[in-house]
């Protein structure tokens, strides 16, 4: 009986000492699978925002109005998408999703943003000295954008111990660069409730 008790004590002590396992398992999954692990902003949120913005932006009257008036597709540039939330959120994925879908749909044209332009312009300037006359790209022939896409992500957090409700709001606006008119505003809200257990084994 005592021997058994000793064994139990030894086992308990070992469990307490925390023999952690470091096994890693990897499972491939479809890129659009919803994976909510920590409750923070993730790829699913990014995708939902992109889908909503693409659907909304391409179905509003501003697009037909511009095409009818100008007889061509509008040219857009991505401006500042500010993160005003309480999480570090990379806005690049959903902005790229929006750009890709709208370019591929043939409804709009995008020009490079200031960061992208810097690299391309450096290349073009280099071509003026290094490239052959037949292949050289001319300076001052860039396409000027008609509209700038700007936006922000905000979040409101309400929390008590172990529970957190976060409302993310992504606002995007399309501004006519010449007239400064706002021709489209899109909003996507995502709310999450995260509950964390107070105890674990």
């Amino acid at each position, binding site marked *: 009986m005592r021997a058994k008790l*000793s064994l139990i004590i030894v086992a308990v002590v070992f469990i*307490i*000492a925390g023999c952690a396992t470091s096994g890693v398992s990897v499972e491939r999954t479809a890129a659009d699978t919803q994976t909510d692990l920590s409750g923070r902003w993730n790829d699913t949120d990014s995708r939902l925002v992109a889908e909503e913005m693409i659907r909304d932006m391409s179905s509003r009257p501003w697009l037909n109005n511009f095409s009818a008036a100008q007889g061509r597709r509008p040219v857009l540039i991505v401006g500042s998408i500010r993160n005003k939330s309480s*999480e570090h959120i990379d806005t690049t994925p959903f902005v790229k999703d929006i750009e890709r879908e709208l370019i591929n749909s043939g409804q709009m044209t995008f020009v490079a943003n200031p960061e992208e332009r810097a690299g391309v312009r450096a290349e073009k300037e280099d071509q003026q000295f290094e490239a052959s006359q037949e292949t050289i790209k001319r300076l001052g022939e860039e396409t000027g954008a008609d509209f700038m896409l700007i936006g922000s992500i905000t979040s409101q957090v309400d*929390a008590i*111990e172990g529970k957190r409700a976060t409302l993310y709001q992504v606002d995007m606006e399309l501004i006519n660069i010449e007239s400064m008119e706002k021709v489209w505003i899109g909003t996507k809200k995502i709310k999450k409730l995260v509950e*964390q257990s*107070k105890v*674990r084994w």
Partner: protein
Amino acid sequence: MVVSGHSRKVLFRAFLLVSLLVVVSCTTRNEPFVEIDNAVSQGNYAQAARTMSGEERSAYYRDKDKVLYYLDVGMLYHYGGEYELSTQHLNEAELLIEQYFTKSISQAAGSLLLNDNVMDYAGEDYEDIYLNVFKSLNFLSRGDFDAGFVEVRRVNTKLNLLEDKYSSLAAGYNSADDAAVELKAGDNRFYNSALARYVSLLLYRGEGDYDGARIDYNKIVEAFLLQPDIYDFEPPVDESALRRPEGARLSVLAFAGRSPVKKAKTLTIATGSNTVSILTMDEDDAGQLIPTGYNSFFWPGVEGGYRFKFQLPYLEPQGSAVDTIRLVVDAQPVGQLKMIENMERIAEATFQVKYPIIFMKTVTRTIVKGILAQVGKKQLQEQAGGGWGLLGSIVADIAIEASEKADLRTSRYFPAHAYMGEFDIPEGEHFVELEYYSGGSLLQVDELGILNLTKGGLNLATSYSNK
């Protein structure tokens, strides 16, 4: 001496128990940090951080002390100007603190049997707040205003949580006229950080959101009113912080010294026939136990043979020699900074709130273990007899002493004091220095270099002195 088979089993189990207790109760001690502390004293922060990283990490931190590792190394990288590495480490600390909100039942049970060192170090409230403050400063140092603001919003969420948890006083204060409210002294519970609120004020103001800045200003005032034990000095911020300056306004945040470390006070209580003896030992800088007191007194009726060893943690301030910080712009003294947070005091207050629980838990555990050991020793004497019984008793005492270790874990490299100052300075480029003084003697000059101060801009300069 003949040893029976049964006695051998008993002894084997006792030795096994000793080994296990020694292995599982090993603690984080102060000794390995002597070399690191020397590097920090010489201002070699990044080198100190790298020394503790990689393969050497296990020499300084156990697996259960990951939060401490990330906090300490993150702060050292911050002082060393390696802001990206600092942020990476502080991020890890924050994620783990969040994860450890969920307490392990098995570890809690282990702490009742052995000591608190078997539990994951989950960080103190103030550590969780300060890591965001320094992450924010890291981002701002790299010119990433939005990311710095994200950290400030996280601080605000955490402070709101703490306020909801601990501050019934604040609620009363907020809902009544100032004159009608009877403000009571705080119960030492830290739930609002003037430093964190000030960094938040700076960012809201830098954004041009003066309503947001005013809310932070009010929270700073509240921190001083409702936590007088922690903020026992004059508030350094007044309503001029909410005024739009004519020219540029340079905001300076300076930190000095180092946060307290925990050391162990060891009390050994032994009973003889009608006597009780108490031996007290403190820990020196190298972690060696030094006897500091011995008392023996007559206690009629006390049974001999009991031995209890207590180890209780206490905070030893590292402090700062700095008492004055002066801003010098273009070789001209401009003004002095004022203390906004005694971070050392907050660490102490947090510890004091927890101390009664630590004390009761330790005493209860030790007495239970002491009584069980005494019963076991008697049985051993009866079963094994003579010399083996004595040996078994010694082994049992060693086992209990090995398991009874104070939890000395705390972050080591947060500053002791935080200072702030706001100065109206003409727009444009200026050469900015901070002079740190102690008793009128110049200790250190931190050349912040040429800063381009703009009207309406954040214009934040930060500095640290290890003195």
